[in-house]
């Protein structure tokens, strides 16, 4: 019992508020430091925080959000959701049938190993530089972790669960939907999470390489035209979007996988 109280002491100090304040305080302190250094040194590449904030508000609270951020979000969401649909469906099917898995595994492992941005030039050749190309390459990048995790999850369903379904006369698609899919869900979500960050990388890259609008285009263009505060502002917006998407994802995961988290918490 004495031992059990020790890790609590080791992991926490002060109240929750104090601990959160420290984190925020450090960030504020860094920003103040940045502001002071930038003002004193007057380096073009390092504009003061204040000017980044002013530019940020000026850019993103006006038409730029509609012109740059919305196209990016649209491409990303369509690309990512199609990757989710394809990855989960194909992955579960492949995982559920051992022969299909053995047949396709080496091929899929190899496709997954290709850094997804390397296929952007192929996408440009075959589809051009429109929205479609971006959606396709985002989907291509995000689909592999989803597909492979779904296949692994579907492959490792405990025998007893599948037998239980058979005993109760449930088979085929019914078993896939009511037993295999939920069993694979924890794995699928791990893949969905990796897929989401890859999709985010892919939208930025594809817009940097072949686009006339979007956040990736905006940031790179700002740097090339030495619109430095705009470039920083774009990165900050990406950070905010990335953070929000991640937070949204975690919220959904907590809902869908509540049973899994509850079960693991018990097991430990």
């Amino acid at each position: 019992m004495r031992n059990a109280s020790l890790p609590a002491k080791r992991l926490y100090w002060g109240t929750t508020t104090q601990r959160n304040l420290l984190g925020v305080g450090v960030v504020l302190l860094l920003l103040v430091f940045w502001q002071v250094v930038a003002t004193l040194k007057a380096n073009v590449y390092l504009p003061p925080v204040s000017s980044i904030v002013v530019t940020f508000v000026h850019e993103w609270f006006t038409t730029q959000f509609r012109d740059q951020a919305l196209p990016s979000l649209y491409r990303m969401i369509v690309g990512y959701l199609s990757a989710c649909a394809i990855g989960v469906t194909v992955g579960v099917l492949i995982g559920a049938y051992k022969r299909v898995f053995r047949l396709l595994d080496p091929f899929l492992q190899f496709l997954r190993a290709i850094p997804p941005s390397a296929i952007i030039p192929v996408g440009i050749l075959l589809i051009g530089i429109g929205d479609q190309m971006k959606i396709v390459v985002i989907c291509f990048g995000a689909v592999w972790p989803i597909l492979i995790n779904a296949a692994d999850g579907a492959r490792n369903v405990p025998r007893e669960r599948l037998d239980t379904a058979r005993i109760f006369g449930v088979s085929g698609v019914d078993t896939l939907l009511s037993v295999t899919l939920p069993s694979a869900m924890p794995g699928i979500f791990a893949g969905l999470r990796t897929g989401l960050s890859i999709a985010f990388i892919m939208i930025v890259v594809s817009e940097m390489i072949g686009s006339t609008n979007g956040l990736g285009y905006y940031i790179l263009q700002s740097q090339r035209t030495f619109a430095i505060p705009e470039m920083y502002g774009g990165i900050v917006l990406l950070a905010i979007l990335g953070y929000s998407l991640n937070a949204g994802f975690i919220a959904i995961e907590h809902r869908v996988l509540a049973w899994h988290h509850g079960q693991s918490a018990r097991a430990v």
Partner: protein
Amino acid sequence: MNTIDEKLLDVVGLEKRYHSSGTLAIESVTLDVRRSEFVSIVGPSGCGKTTLLKTICGLLHPSSGTVRLNGRLIAEPPPEMVLVFQDYARSLFPWLTVEGNVAFPLKKKNLSKADKSKVIDDVLRAVNLERFAKHYPWQLSGGMQQRVAIARAVAFSPEILLLDEPFASVDALTRAELEDLTLDLRDKLGITMLLVTHDIDEAVYLSDRVFVLSPPPSVVVREFAIPLGRARDQETTRSDARFLELRNEIHHLIGRPRQLAPEPTAV
């Protein structure tokens, strides 16, 4: 009544050899279970008891021999028969509540919503879990989880339950409780029971007949009738002289595996 009609389950010369390794798990098992009887199969650890049950219920195909239920050959798990696994943590669906798990076998039954919830209420009451319908299995103790698994099996309204060491993963008190619950279900619902266990006391306590299995490749070594009557009680039955005598006899038989040669009179 003729004897053939009495046999609900009839296993003849069942042999099971694994495809992948070629190991012979079951050499030849012949046994039968009569309607509303409680029959146990006991044997040393690793004697292929689980394989035997899986083959009987149609999850595995026998290499030779036949399994008949109500006179019909079994190829796929039949609707009149349910297998309850030892490992409830694996067989229950952790993403479904107790209620959801119990409703699972009703999927294919085309019941109305009202009928469905009546079945769920009834079986949960039968295992004293009506208060836990909205809980998840992993929020319950081991014994309660196994009761959920039994309730789910009963909800399918089978004629016979196959129980694969269902009480092996719970503590002794819970075990006694589950044993009596199973007897109770047999009496109230008239479900026939075929139990596999390595616990000789449990087998004798619960059963009308006990089949003793040899180490693999398994054969039935002997069949014991347990003339202890229908009503059993953890205290009086277990201290009954005939109980102790039978239990010792089976212990003696299993304790010396080398003598477990099949006797011609056994089967």
